[in-house]
């Protein structure tokens, strides 16, 4: 873990030196911000270096590839040993006679089964053995199967690769790790290297291949687009219902003392309750079908939108309301032409938060129980140890969440151009 962090820091610092100092001339800019001499402490002068973003993402993929033996990564950390190797052991028979024998091991790549080589028994009462083992796995070597002196006769292994051992001892040899079990057999594990097993972390190309496969043929009776589409549909339906109820409720709370008094305790109580805590209750009441999910997301969005609309009303400068009244506007006209447009920035901020919360909640709800959806996909995959599907699901969930936020920001810029400029 620590070498990994050091490598990461080295890439961070190295690319900084390379890009910022070596390429300074090439990337010189001549706009107004570039003339500011004080940049440390002036947030407006801090511009994200997009080249750094690109290198950052590439670095993540590089490290991911390097530790999974990806074909895409130009460098790899040492992988598990694959091939043929051997180690020796010394058996002491009951009468004190000693003889040396060799274990010939064939380590096959992960997921394949190799065939044990034919070995000559060698001389002495201890005969040579042959075993086969998969990479990252271990194998039990019952060395006395073919020997003249067996454990039942009182023979025991006293040394491995020349190192004396007792039952329970572990010896690190060039061929890998050998442990003498309590019953006298040998447990042999070839060197694992530093790479991750695909079952823990598949290489990026496996995830991409899985995306293509699931996009083409589906997963658990639904296509990938159906899974993602259903999750999105639930979010949008729940959010729209929440906004449809929450915004008028928030306006009412901002405009009438009775409404505010009546709903304040309810809203203030429900607001800090995380929607995830409502999942069990919603499942009890509405089951695990669509209705339950949408009710849950409705509740997640409702309070956020209510509070946003209420804040929007209280954010209206009183002089604007006074101005509208003294221009002869009626209450309804003031609501329509002054309060609603003036609260739009707050409502958009609330909508962005609500969409984020809804997206997180829908995935969590699908993790608990669902027939389809992004969360259900990764939950089922994790039960079958399909790590590539899990990682694919996480990446897609992240991309969609990010996409939702970007769309909301674009809509906000378009609908509320005066935000932050008054």
């Amino acid at each position, binding site marked *: 873990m620590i070498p990994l962090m050091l490598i990461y820091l080295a890439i961070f610092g190295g690319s900084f030196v390379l890009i910022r100092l070596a390429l300074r001339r090439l990337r010189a800019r001549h706009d107004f911000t570039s003339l500011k001499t004080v940049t440390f402490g002036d947030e407006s002068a801090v511009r994200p270096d997009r080249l750094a973003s690109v290198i950052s993402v590439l670095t993540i993929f590089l490290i991911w590839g390097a530790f999974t033996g990806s074909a895409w990564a130009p460098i790899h950390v040492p992988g598990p040993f694959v091939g043929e190797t051997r180690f020796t052991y010394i058996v002491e028979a009951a009468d004190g006679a000693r003889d040396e024998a060799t274990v010939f091991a064939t380590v096959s790549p992960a997921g394949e089964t190799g065939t044990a080589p034919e070995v000559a028994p060698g001389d002495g009462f201890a005969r040579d053995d042959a075993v086969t083992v998969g990479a990252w796995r271990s194998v039990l070597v019952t060395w006395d199967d073919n020997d003249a002196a067996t454990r039942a006769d009182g023979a025991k292994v006293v040394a491995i690769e020349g190192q004396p051992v007792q039952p329970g001892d572990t010896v690190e040899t060039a061929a890998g790790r050998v442990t003498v079990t309590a019953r006298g057999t040998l447990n042999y594990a070839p060197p694992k290297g530093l790479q991750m097993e695909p079952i823990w972390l598949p290489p990026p190309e496996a995830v991409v291949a899985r995306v293509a496969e699931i996009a083409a043929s589906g997963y658990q009776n639904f296509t990938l687009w159906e899974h993602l589409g259903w999750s999105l549909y639930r979010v949008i339906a729940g959010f729209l219902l929440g906004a449809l109820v929450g915004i008028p409720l928030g306006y009412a709370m901002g405009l009438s003392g009775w409404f505010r008094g009546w709903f304040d305790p309810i809203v203030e109580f429900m607001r800090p309750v995380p929607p995830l805590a409502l999942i069990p209750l919603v499942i009890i009441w509405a089951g695990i079908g669509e209705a339950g999910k949408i009710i849950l997301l409705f509740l997640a969005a409702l309070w956020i939108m209510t509070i946003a609309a209420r804040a929007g009303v209280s954010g209206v*400068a009183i*002089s*604007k309301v*006074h*101005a*509208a*009244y*003294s*221009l*002869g*506007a*009626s209450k309804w*006209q003031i609501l329509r*032409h*002054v309060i609603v*447009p*003036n609260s*739009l920035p707050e409502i958009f901020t609330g909508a962005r938060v609500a969409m984020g919360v809804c997206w997180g909640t829908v995935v969590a709800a699908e993790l608990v129980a669902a027939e389809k959806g992004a969360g259900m996909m990764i939950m089922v995959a994790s039960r079958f140890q399909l790590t590539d599907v899990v990682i694919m699901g996480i990446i897609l969930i992240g991309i969609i969440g990010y996409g939702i936020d970007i769309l909301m920001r674009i809509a906000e810029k378009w609908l*509320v*151009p*005066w935000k932050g*400029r*008054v």
Partner: protein
Amino acid sequence: MRFDLPNGSHVQALRDVSLTLNTGELLSVLGPSGCGKTTLLNIVAGFLAPTEGQITLNGTRVTGPAAERGMVFQQGALFEWMSVRDNVSFGPRMAGQREAQWKGAVDHLLDVVGLRDFKEKAVYELSGGMQQRVALARCLANDPDVILMDEPLGALDALTREKMQGLVLKLWKETGKTIILITHSVEEALLLGERLLVMAPRPGRIHREYRLPFAEMGAGQDLRLVKKHPDFAARREEILSMIWDMEEEIMGRNVEAGA
């Protein structure tokens, strides 16, 4: 005007403020901070209900805000989600007029206040002085009987302010509207006040009333010439020292109360 405070005591914000304003008069109200100028204006506008006495306009009693009393605020209070033209036509549109009915008047007003080229702009693209011109035009477009101005030029820089004072005078002369103007600038009160009300604090009351010739002189003339008039400097000194004394008195009282 008297109201209770949360701690059980009460504030006498205004007492015995009686005056009659004739059509077409321009009244400026001046006084140290806390003398109830803005409270008085809010009562006239109908945003506050007086505890004693009443406001009567054209023979009917004022009970709330209405289109007959237009208001110009210190910060413009414009609707930034509307273009300049939509802001100015807000009053007529709310009254249900069609575009054909208000278009001519709105365009004319925007020309008069010098925003000919900014009619379709968003208000947040305008400078502070321009925004205040929009606010003036918006108020005039509604054709109110009385225009109430609450330190309308207070937030502007000195140069823009001088220009705007000329504009207010010009509009007053051209439209013949009745105007009540609250200000904390003695010079502005003298220049723009055909009648000038100096108020005293605690409780807010009319301290003294002047009738001044400067507004009449200033209309259509360079305001800097008016300021050079010998009477102008004398009046300014007189009123300044009057307000100075009031401020001293307030502070002195505070010191005594604290001791």
